[in-house]
């Protein structure tokens, strides 16, 4: 519905001093590397990007309006559809918000289950990111490798939840059922298989000089800009800011585990790549520790049939694979939230894209967009 931009506007280029016509190119919504239905309007000078205007909303389904018309438990499946590559993390963030609003404590074992599933989900999400990022840069093989491992995580999830993508497995007050008997051994087997795979990814991506040339010094967002834009997750940590909600605002039982927060300060696509790459190792560590400590017991707290949090409001946040997933919930004491708002990490991260793209080449656009790691389901809500 945009008004067409007149063609033939003559501008004087600052960089070269030459006068030439600007060119507008639509990238997306029907484009192989916009990771869904994102549309970027690129203003080009030859192959250089002068400006970039993102258009979003192609997947908008008024998630928040739906949320206001459902009761608290019924919202859980909708949160799956936010970030469909990290449904567990979305569930986690949501139930956390409601529990915080209610002041609800949940059983120990359920906490461990939540952490294990969320960290496995983080691995799966970073794997799919790594694969598609390779695809963006023209490396097809890493994609298949990552999907092979991701399938294993999905198999684990299937054994637990019966679902492969949209799990809806977290409940307000705990977990609906315990792990199946086979889970512990399966999970350990997966970790044992997965750990030696990471050096393989390094061999094909990290240590590949062509890959390094493509990502280093590209799409720079200085720490200042990152904070001003409110970037979160790996995007923020790639700017040298050691900020991870699992560590800085420990929720659930994250304070019980030993793990590093990978931080790189080159602020470019490479740093974002390295942060996510390292995070997979850290998630493996967390899962291993959680499996070792997993206590026996109940997985569901005693909850009323209809969940009615006391009147009040809360902004609750958690660390999803893409960054800070926040839920702003206003309760009026009824079974449905009066106001339900999602602060999605990819939405905020994406808003800084034009800033990062200025002066890049068209080819870099793909790399930078890939490094932001957007999921349109969450951006558009």
């Amino acid at each position, binding site marked *: 519905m945009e008004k067409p931009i007149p063609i033939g506007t003559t501008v004087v280029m600052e960089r070269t001093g030459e006068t030439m016509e600007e060119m507008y190119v639509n990238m997306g919504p029907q484009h192989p590397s916009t990771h869904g239905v994102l549309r970027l309007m690129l203003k080009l000078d030859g192959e250089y990007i002068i400006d970039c205007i993102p258009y979003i*909303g192609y997947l908008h389904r008024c998630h928040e309006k739906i949320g206001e018309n459902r009761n608290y438990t019924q919202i859980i499946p909708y949160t799956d559809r936010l970030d469909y590559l990290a449904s567990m993390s979305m569930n986690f963030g949501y139930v956390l918000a409601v529990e915080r609003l209610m002041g609800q404590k949940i059983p120990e074992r359920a906490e461990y289950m939540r952490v294990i599933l969320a960290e496995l989900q983080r691995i799966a999400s970073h794997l799919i990111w790594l694969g598609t990022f390779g695809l963006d840069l023209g490396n097809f093989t890493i994609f298949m490798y990552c999907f092979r491992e991701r399938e294993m995580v999905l198999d684990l999830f299937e054994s637990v939840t019966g679902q492969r993508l949209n799990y809806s497995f977290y409940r307000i007050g705990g977990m609906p059922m315990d792990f199946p008997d086979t889970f512990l051994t399966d999970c350990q087997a997966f970790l044992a298989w997965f750990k030696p795979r990471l050096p393989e990814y390094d061999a094909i991506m990290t240590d590949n000089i062509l890959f390094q040339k493509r990502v280093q010094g590209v799409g720079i967002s200085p720490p200042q800009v990152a904070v001003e834009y409110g970037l979160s997750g790996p995007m923020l940590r790639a700017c040298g800011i050691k900020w991870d909600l699992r560590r800085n*605002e420990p929720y659930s039982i994250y304070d019980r585990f030993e793990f590093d927060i990978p931080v790189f300060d080159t602020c470019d696509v490479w740093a974002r790549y390295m942060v996510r790459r390292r995070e997979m190792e850290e998630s493996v560590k967390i899962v291993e520790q959680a499996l070792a400590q997993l206590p026996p017991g109940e997985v569901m707290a005693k909850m009323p*049939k*209809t969940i009615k949090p006391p009147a009040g409001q809360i902004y609750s946040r958690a660390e999803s694979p893409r960054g800070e997933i926040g839920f*702003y919930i206003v309760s009026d004491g009824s079974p449905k939230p009066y106001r339900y708002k999602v*602060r999605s990490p990819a939405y905020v991260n994406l*808003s800084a894209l034009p800033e990062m793209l200025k002066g890049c080449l068209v080819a870099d656009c793909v790399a930078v967009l890939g490094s932001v790691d957007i999921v349109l389901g969450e951006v558009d809500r």
Partner: protein
Amino acid sequence: MTPEEILEQLKQKFGDAITESEVKGVEVRLTVKPEQSWEVCRLVRDIGFEYLNCISGADWMTHLEVVYDLSSLQHPNKAHLRVPVDRDNPVVRTVTDIWRGANWHERECYDLFGVRFDGHPDLRRILLPEDWAGYPLRKDYTDERLVPYTDYGMEEKVAKAEGEKAAPKEARSLQPPTPTKPATA
């Protein structure tokens, strides 16, 4: 700095602008008049809340509300600013010059609630198409395609099981009086 000290500092400077205030845990909760919201925001930023988490809107029927959730990367404190604005003429000064990331949050708030942000560089709809009419997250928003949710008697059953008086289909006056239509309409 404790949340109380922060609140004190804010109150000293903008005593009249802050109509309500509360400290909950590490969170400072304020209600600020829209005329001075920008100044308060800037002071809050200077105190150390350099990280804008989110700008949300809320419709309280009597008025709209713009909610700023802020936090800091240095100290554990959080801030929660609520700015009530007039429902018929919802205008509030933009904070994009304080936090650049406010851009999309404010566009979203404009898109879904119709709050106009004065001085915003590019106030367009963001999630909905440009030609969309109305602001969907306002409580009185109606649309023939929008089917209000019914519980299909679930709540009554639950209530009966619990031995309470079966609550009639929720007297939430805020519910838009839209006739139920099949979803395929």
